[in-house]
């Protein structure tokens, strides 16, 4: 069992609740003990860095300082946006002494840079070598489009995580649980980020392109590791289909949910019922292992050959 600090972030308490649920469900099975940072605050997300650079550094600084106080060497940050903010803020503080001093004064805490934020994929890579493959009871034999989004891999000089173009780590983890990841063109293209509410059309346009590419290349589900991406691709599906005059019903799952299914965990525990787009994965034909892509079928009808995922 390895102990890692845990920073859920605001969305995992609300709109991305199933991400938190599925993560906590699989954690003991993959050898992670999560220690939540006490009384953590919001990292500031896009709003802070757009309006006030000092605030945008101070809010993450408090989180890092609190983690350091608990002697945590690593902090698992499942939300890609929070992860990006924490790493960027830490990098700035550690390379700019006057700024670090100023921010320490503001938050009334010291930041030494000893608590390293890691993202969900890093955590999974660490623990998957502890025998994830051995514990698979229900191989996830589906064709998947691994969607990394922007903030897990960019900017590469600061994050230094995986290849910035055509990253592979999520694909590797999914292969370990039996999935077949596709090679596609929108792995790291932006979904529309924080414009879900204020400029929904932009999300519809950008997320629509992502879904179209995944579906056209034969993916049966999209795997994500970011609540914002999930929200844009899933919750906003009606707007996407309306804007693009399309009828995509491909489900979007968190990687922790896919892993949970492969480990044989009950789907309610993984929060799979909380998605806007029902997570219906096709039954595999024994001979070819192929099925039709999840396209052009009405959202509500349950035609033959498709069953709820077990």
């Amino acid at each position, binding site marked *: 069992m390895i102990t890692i600090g845990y920073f859920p972030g605001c969305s995992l308490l609300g709109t991305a609740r199933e991400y938190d649920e599925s993560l906590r469900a699989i954690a003991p099975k993959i050898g992670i003990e999560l220690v939540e940072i006490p009384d953590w605050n919001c990292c500031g997300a896009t709003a802070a860095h757009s309006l006030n650079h000092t605030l945008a550094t101070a809010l993450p600084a408090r989180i890092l300082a609190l983690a350091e106080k608990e002697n945590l060497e690593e902090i698992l940050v499942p939300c890609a946006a929070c992860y990006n903010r924490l790493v960027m803020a830490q990098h700035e503080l550690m390379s700019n002494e006057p700024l670090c001093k100023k921010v320490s004064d503001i938050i009334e805490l010291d930041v030494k840079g000893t608590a390293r934020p890691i993202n969900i994929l890093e955590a999974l890579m660490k623990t998957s070598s502890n025998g994830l493959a051995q514990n698979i009871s229900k191989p996830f034999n589906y064709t998947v489009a691994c969607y990394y989004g922007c903030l897990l891999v960019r900017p590469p000089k600061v994050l230094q995580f995986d*290849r910035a173009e*055509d990253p592979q780590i999520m694909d590797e983890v999914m292969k370990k649980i039996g999935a077949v990841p596709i090679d596609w063109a929108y792995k790291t293209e932006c979904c529309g980020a924080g414009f879900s509410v204020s400029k929904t059309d932009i999300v519809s346009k950008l997320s629509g392109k992502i879904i179209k*590419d995944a579906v056209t290349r034969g993916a049966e589900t999209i795997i994500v590791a970011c609540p914002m991406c999930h929200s844009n691709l899933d919750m906003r599906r009606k707007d996407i289909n309306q804007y693009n005059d399309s009828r995509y019903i491909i489900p979007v799952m968190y990687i922790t949910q896919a892993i949970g299914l492969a480990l044989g965990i009950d789907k309610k525990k993984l929060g799979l019922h909380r998605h806007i787009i029902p997570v219906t994965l096709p039954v595999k034909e024994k001979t070819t292992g192929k099925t039709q892509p999840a396209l052009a079928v009405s959202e509500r009808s349950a035609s033959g050959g498709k069953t709820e995922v077990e």
Partner: protein
Amino acid sequence: MSRIGVFICHCGENIAGTVDCAKVAEVVSHLSGVAHSVDYKYMCSDPGQNLIKEAIKEKNLSGVIVAACSPRMHEPTFRRACAEAGLNPFLCEMANIREHCSWVHEKSDGTTQKAIDLIRMLVSKVRKNKPLYPIKVPVQRTALVIGGGIGGIQASLDIANAGHKVILVERDPSIGGHMSQLSETFPTLDCSQCILTPRMVEVAQHPNITLYTYSEVESVSGFIGNFKVKIRKKARCVDEKLCNGCGVCIQKCTVKKIPSEFDEGLGLRPAIYVPFPQAVPNKPVIDKKNCTYFIRGKCAACEKLCPTKAIRFDQQDEIIEADVGGIVLATGFTILNTDFFPEYGYGKYKDIITGLQYERLASASGPTLGVIKRPSDGKIPETVVFIACAGSRDSAKGIEYCSKICCMYTAKHAMLYKHKFHEGKAYVFYMDIRAGGKMYEEFVRRAIEEDHVKYIRGRVSKIYEEDGKLIVKGADTLLNHQPIEIKADMVVLATASIANQGAEELAQKLHVSYDSYHFFAEAHPKLRPVETNTAGIFLAGACQAPKDIPDTVAQASGAGSKIAALFSATEMTREPVIAVVHRTAPPIFSTCVGCFLCQSACPFQAIEREEIKARDGKVLKVVAKVNDGLCQGCGTCVALCRSKSIDLQGFTHEQMYAQIMAS
């Protein structure tokens, strides 16, 4: 008894404007050891020099000091004047009272006094000067040219035609280099091999040139005029004397599908092969890594079928030793591959190719016989996108420089595509157009105006594949910076020119400087582009910096002329301002204890070991010895020696301390 003549120059107003030259001459005349002291307006002029010559004869001077400008300006002038008057030139020195005095101070008594002080110090030194004589070093009049591309070929021909012997070493099985891979050359669109092969044949047939192909330089030692080189002639497994180039072995080889290096991976070759039909020498070589006989001991079809029994599986590498007097480095360059570009797919898309691969497609003797075809499915592309500056001018990718040749060859590539396939669409994404050579600008305009190649100013952000097409996402910065997306059938990247593989190791073997990109360093970027800082080693071509063919040929001829100058006599003279190790009578022989600190410090590898032996051959002492052909007189060894056993002629400890103590 010292009889030094001091000549103070006014240098017009340059010195006289701030220093009272007449006073200086007067004060100096009273110094001990000074027999003659005058001032004059322009010492470097003819009358000025005559003053020196006459004074030497009349007053029997034992030394001359000219107090004037910097010795870097006129020391040779005054030394020559002294030599003409019969005084050893190394008894003549200059006191710099211009750059070191009059030019950096205001007019004052202090300035005049400083000039006097400088001269006084130098008088104390010159009193201890001894005559020195130039060193003669023999010159071996054979040149080594490393690299058999157009640069090496040109240099070899120039040196050979000047009447000297040349050894040309090329590591590939044939000479020709990248020029032999090109289809047509800009700006004339001459067929590249047609203009190159006559030169290649000339090299092979020239009586003064010894050609070693499939060979590499193993080691180099020695110094200018006297290099000792070892060349490793790798085993071709074919006896070149017996082979008549009939080609039966190549036809009958059972391993046929090896990606051809000459075709940049787009064509195939067998395990026994000649890189291209016009290869010089036209003798095959066996690729041991892929030959069935070497892997499993089976086959040997070539051996069985060779009509002259020329196949020799047991042939070994041969080490050839040679003495050469000068070396020309003409090792050329290579280019980045498509896997260098993450945003263009890490090299996974077959239809994104490099400029050299495109040359092979366009070449009439290439894998597609000159028809531009997509490597993936062999179809003729209807839309081709050419991307300039792929990797060059890119700090983020670590290559800040411009690769110079790509603007021109991209225009050429686009033109060739349009000439071969009129209905096709050609787009070039560029940042600037660098077409500064003769007829170059006109060439690019021809591509745009006559051949209707569409030039878009902008870089491409990403390329990915969709439905068998390559989606190119670029921008047009001349049209509001708006994004432009093109669905291309093929993309040609004009990738950066980089130093050739093995450049660093070769430079270290030869002790030649190189920069952070592993291009070899010229001695001076403006005025000495063909020499290196290592005496006797010269540069030709793209190994120094990215270069097109005309400039390479010009530089190669330049290197050839430097070699010819070096070989103009059987001996060369060197300045005697070099280090010398103390020697004295037995039983001491030398105060040197043989610690060789000097040897490890010497930047020019000029310190050797010398064994002092008794008459019966027993080694009594091992001391340091300075190679007078290599020593540059930098003085590092002198500073380091703990027993003060090594000294610099012309600047001995005695001389320097005298000068300092007189201040």
